């Protein structure tokens, strides 16, 4: 008779077992807010195409306090998503080499975050310039 009887442990609620998994679920979960913001941008674009009345309606929505609070929350979640995305970047791209030396992961993450800040700043400055009547 075979006395072997291997025991397989259940995977129920595995995402709560380790702080690493909780953080993983949190940064993956913030992708929902990226999707929500994309929907809002799309709605704005559709309103713009529909004409002045629709566009003014969209602007009114943006000024509505609950919408402003929701967009504030979306901004925070997007920042968290962006930062954690760049933190895991060194694990997901091929090693970057300068000469024979491999660029350390923290340099890649830092460069990514700096690029994110620079792109956001350029966008903000450009938008402000357009709002002032540029072009």
């Amino acid at each position, binding site marked *: 008779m075979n006395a072997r009887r291997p025991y397989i*442990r259940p995977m129920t609620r595995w995402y709560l077992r380790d702080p*690493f*998994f909780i953080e993983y679920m949190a940064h993956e979960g913030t992708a929902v807010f990226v999707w929500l913001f994309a929907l809002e941008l799309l709605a704005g674009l559709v309103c713009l195409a529909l004409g002045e009345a629709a566009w003014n309606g969209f602007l009114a929505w943006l000024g509505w306090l609950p919408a402003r609070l929701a967009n504030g929350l979306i901004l925070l979640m997007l920042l968290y998503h962006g930062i954690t995305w760049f933190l895991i970047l060194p*694990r*997901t*791209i*091929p090693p970057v080499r300068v000469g024979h030396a491999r660029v350390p992961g923290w340099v890649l993450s830092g460069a990514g975050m700096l690029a994110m800040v620079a792109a956001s700043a350029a966008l903000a400055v450009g938008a402000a310039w357009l709002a002032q009547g540029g072009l």
Partner: protein
Amino acid sequence: MKPQTKTVAVLRYRPEQDTEPFWQEYEVPFADDTSVLAALNYIKDELDGTLSFRWSCRQAICGSCGFMIAGKPRLACKSFLREFPGKVTVEALAHFPIERDLVVVMDDFIAKIERVKPWLMPREERSPDAGEYRQTPQEMSLYEQFAGCINCGLCYAACPQVGLNPDFLGPAAIALLHRYNLDSRDGGSEARKQLINAEVGVFNCTAVGYCSAVCPKMVDPANAVNVNKMNSARDYFFRFLPRPGNKGDCQ
């Protein structure tokens, strides 16, 4: 002076008499240099000879003594009782079936390692008279860190996808596959392609990244898996374009 002691709780499972695992606590005397492995050996030698666990080298080389220590995958020889405030829990590696106590069934893990064809398939056949297959330090540096794997299984215990889908090839096997694919002397990438490009190859990975965080040998299996996702996608979309040059060539 009476030595200080620590409570070590071990998840026991004796298949001939237990229907499921249970926790058993032992009081173990310890000093600053008492490893968890030394504590387990103390329990085995002095308190309870029925406790089963694997171990061998005591210096993080053999990869035998991987357990869930305080809930995280660690080598018992590389973990010390002094690091854990209060009680220390020791459990068999997660995501592996428990054979007995802290001993897990490694058969599936070993089969996955074998499936990636982890040996050099020479790019060009040479007779011994033609001399050895030579490699520059730069060519070696491409795969060196992936060659550090000791098959301890900690990365499988860290990977929730392995636990959710036992068919997933898993971090260590993919890191080993990557190690041979990156080797300038090897020509076996094509032979390994079907396995790595399959859904249970790289695409079961959801980039949790814990595999690389727990590796006791600083291997980065998450990088091996994710680089191969890119390679696999490129292989699919650009399969009609000319192949890249030899490994280690200027890019």
